[in-house]
């Protein structure tokens, strides 16, 4: 029963459609990107969860702080989406920025867990600053690689 599709492929499909072998590299790259995206997401999620748990244990019940932390996580998620969807193939170095963001957030969350009110500001500035720096580097590269129009010669 399982051999029937193979039999059809061998005797009917192949002679009619031709043989083609696609490169395996493309699929591997996509798999790596997806894995990196998931890792970054997990790291950011871990940071958020860690802060939320510590915050809850601390008993401060300052939900506004969680909102700030949530904003920082949304910042990371939005950046991850941009890198995954648009920027990764053009600027592969942005994957490292994403991992840096997630790790930085995680570090701030654990270092600043005792004073969550101060930590939320640091998180916001950190994510905003990295976004800004990343954008500026992209702009710089764009300007550097831009070819000036050659003036017409007589």
């Amino acid at each position, binding site marked *: 029963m399982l051999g029937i599709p193979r039999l059809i492929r061998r005797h009917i499909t192949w*002679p009619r*459609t*031709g*043989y*083609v*072998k696609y490169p395996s590299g493309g699929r591997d790259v996509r798999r790596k990107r997806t894995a990196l995206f998931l890792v970054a997401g997990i790291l950011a999620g871990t940071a958020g969860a860690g802060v939320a748990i510590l915050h809850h244990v601390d008993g401060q019940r300052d939900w506004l702080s969680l909102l700030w932390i949530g904003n920082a996580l949304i910042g990371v998620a939005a950046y991850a989406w941009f890198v995954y969807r648009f920027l990764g193939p053009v600027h592969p170095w942005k994957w490292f920025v994403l991992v840096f963001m997630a790790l930085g957030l995680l570090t701030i969350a654990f270092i600043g867990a005792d004073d969550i009110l101060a930590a939320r500001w640091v998180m916001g500035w950190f994510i905003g600053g990295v976004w800004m720096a990343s954008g500026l580097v992209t702009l710089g590269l764009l300007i550097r690689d831009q070819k000036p129009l*050659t003036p017409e*010669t007589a």
Partner: protein
Amino acid sequence: MNDQIRAISELDRVIHEPGRLMIFVLLGAVEECDFLYLLRETELNKGNLSSHLSRLEEAGYVEITKTYRGKVPQTILRLTPAGRGAFEQYLKFLKSAF
């Protein structure tokens, strides 16, 4: 003359011919394929396709391997590293021209 316009005159004429360009685009997207696949995709006739492939083989851009799949003869085609390089160069020139 404007450098961007001049780039058009530097295009590789072996690749630039529409039939051969179709072959390059198809072979560039795959690792290898057979004659029949190209025949179906390009919709060229056998003689035309064969002559284009011979021209590309002469230029060292395409590797042609004659083999058998069972009892059926099969012609496997793939771009050589020189062919891929030339195609990349061609695309680069074309982009710089526009």
